[in-house]
Every structure is written in C-alpha cells, then in structure tokens.
C-alpha cells in the first residue's frame, strides 16, 4: 500500500532550519543553510529540499514556485502566455527544474489557469515570500543545481530524505507547502494520516501525494485558515496528529519547532543574538558562525517553540 510505504519513508531523514535575528546574516542565509543541509547527507542521501523566505513581492504580488519534470521546459513562453492572459508583466526566475513566477492575481485563479492549461506543472509553493526548491539526489548536488548558496533571505528550512520503501520522487520530497507562505519539514512518521486526509479533503484542503507529511502541512493550513495563530495550530496538532515527529514549520515571518509527546526523533535547538537554528543533529549547526558560543538545548516534547518578526 502506497500510504503505508510513505510511513516508512522517513525513518531517518535530516531536517534543518535557520532564522536570522541580525539582518547582517540575511545575505548569507542560503550559504549557511546549504552547509547545514550537506552536513545532514548521511541521514538523507536520496533527495533534498529547501524553503527560503526572501524577496517579498510588492503590490500584493503572488510568488509561485513551479516544477517541471522536463529540464528544458520553456518557462519564458509560459510567462509570456500567462502575461497575455492577465494583461500583466510576469517576473520569472529559473533555477534548474524550478521557476519562480510573480503574478498579480489571486492564487486560486492562477492555480485554476495552470491546471487547465499546464497540468504537467506542479505548484510547489505560493505566497508573498516563500520559495521552495526540492529535487532527487545528494544534498550537495541539489545545492549545486539550484545554486542555493546564492539565496538571501530572512529564514529557511531544509530537509534531506532517506526513503526506505516508497518511491524517490521530486513530489515526495520535502518541504511541503499546502498554504500560502506555509511549509513544513518532518522527521518521523504519522499513523493517522489517511483518516485525517479524508477529513481535511472534505474541508477543502487539497493534496498532491499520498505522503503523511503533506497531511500535517494541510492540517496546519486548515487550522490557520480557521483563524488559529501558528502556535494555536501547533498546539492543536499535538492532539490531532498521531505518530512520531519532529516538525519545523516556516511561515511568512516566523519559524516554529514541535516534537511529539514521546519525542524520540532527534532534534536540537541553538540560539545566539544573531540567529536561531534547529537541526536533527548538532553537527549541522556547528557550521554556523558563533555556534560554539550558542545556547544549545534539546526541545522538550509537546512544546511549541516559535520565533517571529514583529
């Protein structure tokens, strides 16, 4: 069964997250996160992915991260076609198999247009600042392919995946985003994701894969849509999600970490005046400047840790 395979697909895996407190660190966000990601290669050599929060759009623009399995996809043609449709100039930036488009239209309209006209494209994320890049391969190759070291931004999450049973595909890689500017990376496995997916689907949340992590991301999207704050949504997740997990969650201006009440999936947090970092293992954080002087601790079970920008 694909779903049970999906549960086996994250027994290992590595997750990393970095939130800058000092703007001077924003210029090297991609560089630092890439080093963290590569350090977690042993935990996840199959695929890797990042969500980077950067370059907020102006005038209510929506930024889309699109993926095509075709390496030579004609992204410029797509941008021209979409621009003609909307009577707008579409900003586009291509990075390997992904392209970032900025459009001035409501996301559901764009989504419908893409589905109808370009069903081969996958929307990896949408929002004001989020960009997601994920791909099969060793973390170092993924970093190289997307030129992740060049990225500047305020905060970022990353994931290295070791799938032991289910298929290794771009779509099954993390991070998962199912809501505007929201993303989730996960180390662990959820046991009630099938039932929860049905419930959430009835609530209008859409899923692209059979992956349990995507259900957790969808669950948070639903809670936030119903008016919960990120902290409240995560508190509710402790009750509603059954399984083993360490989550790192990114929102437009925030970053949060949550472990299940048993807390056997590894996690470590570190904080300095300049940044907050989380990782599955400390050696990923050791790469950051000032790590030797950081306050370091293991996050307690079932406790929400969050940082945000005022």
């Amino acid at each position, binding site marked *: 069964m694909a779903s049970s395979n999906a549960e086996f697909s994250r027994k290992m895996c590595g997750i990393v997250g970095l939130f800058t407190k000092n703007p001077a660190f924003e210029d090297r966000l991609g560089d630092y996160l890439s080093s963290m990601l590569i350090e977690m290669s042993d935990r996840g050599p199959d695929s890797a992915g990042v969500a980077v929060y950067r370059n907020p759009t102006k005038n209510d623009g929506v930024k889309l991260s699109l993926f095509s399995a075709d390496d030579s996809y004609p992204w410029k043609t797509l941008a021209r076609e979409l621009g003609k449709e909307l009577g707008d100039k579409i900003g586009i930036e291509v990075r390997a198999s992904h392209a970032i488009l900025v459009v001035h239209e409501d996301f559901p309209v764009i989504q419908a247009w893409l589905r109808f006209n370009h069903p081969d494209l996958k929307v990896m994320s949408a929002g004001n600042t989020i960009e997601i890049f994920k791909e099969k391969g060793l973390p170092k190759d993924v970093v190289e392919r997307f030129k992740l070291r060049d990225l500047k931004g305020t905060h970022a999450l990353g994931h290295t995946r070791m799938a032991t049973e289910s298929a290794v595909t771009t779509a099954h890689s993390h991070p998962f985003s199912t809501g505007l500017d929201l993303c989730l990376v996960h180390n662990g496995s959820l046991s009630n994701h099938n039932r929860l997916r049905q419930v959430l689907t009835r609530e209008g949340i859409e899923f692209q894969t059979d992956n349990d992590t995507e259900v957790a991301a969808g669950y948070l999207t639903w809670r936030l849509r119903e008016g919960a704050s990120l902290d409240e949504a995560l508190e509710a997740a402790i009750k509603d999600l059954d399984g083993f997990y360490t989550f790192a969650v990114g929102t437009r201006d925030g970053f949060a970490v949550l472990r299940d009440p048993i807390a056997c999936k590894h996690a*470590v947090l570190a904080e300095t005046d300049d940044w907050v970092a989380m990782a599955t293992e400390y*050696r990923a954080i050791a790469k950051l400047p000032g*790590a*030797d002087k950081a306050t370091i601790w*293991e996050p*307690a079970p079932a406790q929400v840790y969050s940082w945000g920008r005022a």
Partner: protein
Amino acid sequence: MTVMDLAKVSLREANQRLHGIAQGSNDLDWRLTNPQGAHAIAAGLDAPLSLTVDGHVGFYCGGMNKQAEITINGHAGPGVGENMMSGVIRVTGNASQSAGASGRGGLLIIGGDASSRCGISMKGIDIVVGGSVGHMSAFMAQRGHLVVCGDAGANLGDSIYEAILFVRGKVESLGADCIEKEMRPEHTAALAGLLEKAGIDADPADFRRYGSARRLYNFNVDHADSY
C-alpha cells in the same frame, strides 16, 4: 598535555590514539579541540587518562568509558556516557536525551539540564544533574543513583528496579511502581558524597528520595494461578 585538533586529525585517528594508550603510560593528559558535534568522540576509552573536549559533541560521547576522566566543555548530544563502566564524565552544558543510558558504573555529571530518558535502564552508574531532567528519566533503572538538582519531567522512574533517585525540585509525575521513600541517614550520606564528587554545592536535606515500590517486578507466588 597532548592536543589533537579534530579539524586536522580525523576522528577515527584521534580515537585510535586514545585507545592505543598502553597500561602504565605516563602520557595521560589529553585535549581535543574543534569537535564540531561529531559522534562517538572518545567512545570506548580504557585507560586512567584525563581528557578535555573543548566544544559541543554529537551522539554517544564517552560511551562505554572505563577509567578515563572526560570533561566536555559544551553541550553533549544523545547518549553521552552511554553504557559507561567506570571513570568520570563531566558535561559543562546541557545534554540531549538518554544521558548515561544503561551505564554500569562510574560518575556522569551534567552541569546544565539533561533531556528525556536520562539514566534509562541504568545499571550501577551514578548520574548527577545540576539542572532538570526530561520525561521518562530512570525508566527501568536497575542500580546506581540519579541525582537531580532541578525538576524531573513526567513518569520519573517508570518500572524502576533498585536504582535510587534524589530530586530537589518538583517531580511532574512518577512512573509506574515508583514512589517517594523515606530519606534515611545512609541516603543523606550517599547523596552528600555524590554532590561533593560532582562539585555541586547543595544541601542534601533539600532532596526527596524516590524508588521502587517493588510491586511490579517481583513474581508473586500467590498469583501463580493467574498465569
């Protein structure tokens, strides 16, 4: 003193040099720098050496230690001093989960907080924690002492055998078959000795003792018909 910089010497080479110290050697003062969170640093030592690790370490630092006195100036990842047999391991910072797991002897000192499952299945080790411990600490603990100067998380001493637990602060909850017990003079004396060895200035009178109610692990012949 011999200094090995882990940015220049591989971890395997460093560990092999420490393992290679012959009985009777006078070369017993060692220092490791730049640990960068590497795993299994100084695991399996078996010589009365004094080793200082300057920086944060990864998983299983000092695991299976015999005789050596190891000081970690920083944070220790999961399983520090796991299955240690003798000697002393001192962590100046916090420790991640499972510190001193299944340790058979020696003394493990955590200056800050230890996370979940501290002293899980301990079998004779003494563990002194300057701060607090997380949930499920001393789970199935068989022998030895766990001293917690701060608070203990949920389910302390669940399914405990004959280990002795001392906690100064609050205990969130006791696990199955773990109860508070009377602090008799011999316990106060043992605790005072452990605090002194750990270099922690605390009054033994402020601690409470916890241990096994012995209702769970004994075979009760009166219940034989139930099996």
